[in-house]
């Protein structure tokens, strides 16, 4: 199983819809795909996949992932959002955060070729625990936006990912066209100077609520 982190130094850049669309795109190729929502504090994948209020199941000493079928593409899914009441605040200390991550990563019967991990932003507890657990065996796409704040946050994130030997396959510059174009070229060049492939996704508000896996061919190719 190859883990693929969909990560970013900044929140709100579109990691979750990119994760789900990438999962669907890979599954439509016949690849066995899992999606783990590692955003414990603000999970949304269960809403994207309509996998709310699920009952946990067990097989052997493993938890069974939920099975999601989107247009014939089957994806295995697991995230905290499916099992906690809607609106309940998540106030996890580090110990419980780390334990949740270990449970989702190691004690779920994923049985997939690729596990896409939708992460929270930045180098907070969840991501540090994930990076330690993955021991440099992960690939990543880093999601950004074409503005300087996102660049600043992502430069730090890229540094952390490289520190943990994560194979960064591409920067996905999301929401292109939404922001001022003044620094767009400079931002793209800043990523390229780090030796990173830049994939641009045009701003598309429908992407927040609709699946458009056909837009992710380039991202697919980058992670495979």
């Amino acid at each position: 199983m190859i883990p693929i982190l969909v990560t970013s130094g900044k929140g709100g850049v579109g990691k979750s819809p990119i994760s789900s669309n990438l999962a669907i795109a890979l599954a439509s190729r016949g690849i066995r795909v899992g999606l783990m929502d590692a955003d414990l504090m603000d999970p949304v994948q269960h809403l994207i996949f309509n996998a709310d209020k699920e009952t946990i199941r067990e097989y052997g000493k493993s938890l069974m992932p939920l099975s999601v079928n989107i247009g014939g593409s089957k994806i295995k899914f697991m995230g905290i959002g499916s099992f906690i009441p809607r609106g309940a605040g998540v106030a996890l200390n580090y110990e419980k955060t780390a334990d949740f991550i270990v449970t989702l990563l190691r004690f779920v019967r994923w049985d997939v070729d690729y596990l896409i991990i939708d992460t929270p932003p930045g180098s907070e507890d969840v991501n540090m625990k994930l990076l330690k657990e993955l021991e440099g065996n992960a690939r990543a796409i880093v999601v950004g936006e074409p503005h300087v704040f996102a660049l600043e946050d992502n430069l730090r994130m890229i540094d952390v990912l490289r520190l943990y030997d994560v194979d960064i396959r591409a920067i996905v510059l999301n929401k292109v066209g939404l922001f001022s174009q003044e620094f767009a070229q400079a931002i793209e060049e800043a990523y390229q100077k780090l030796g990173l492939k830049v994939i641009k996704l045009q701003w598309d508000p429908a992407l927040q609520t609709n699946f458009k896996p056909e837009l992710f061919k380039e991202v697919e190719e980058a992670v495979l």
Partner: protein
Amino acid sequence: MSFNLRLKLLTILPKLLNYGFMQFNDLLKEFPEAKTRSAVLILYDQSSKIAFWIGFENGKPTIKETDPKNPQFATNTITMHVDTFIKVLKNELDFRTAYLYDLIEITSSDGLPPTYHMLIWSAFFDKLSNSLR
């Protein structure tokens, strides 16, 4: 055990025990591994503790009182204030939410993460609280 704690528990214990014996088979369909597990449930208030051992003995589901200071071995231990326990049973507080808020502590003795046990326990408490409605 203080009079206060015993009094609170007396209101729910008979139903709890009945549930445990009558509906364990349904839970086993969802969690067949439960036969290999056991748990100690520790409830406390300001001045005292009470503990129950839950598991299988001689192939039969068993719930019995055990010494909270030296409980019978179990694969996991769950500890909560008796008020939290009653709120969960009354469906006034979701078990998972209580865990996330540090109102419930779970320790593991079998190598599985406490979160894993919490998720299994949450299914148990969902059924328990629903059956007591």
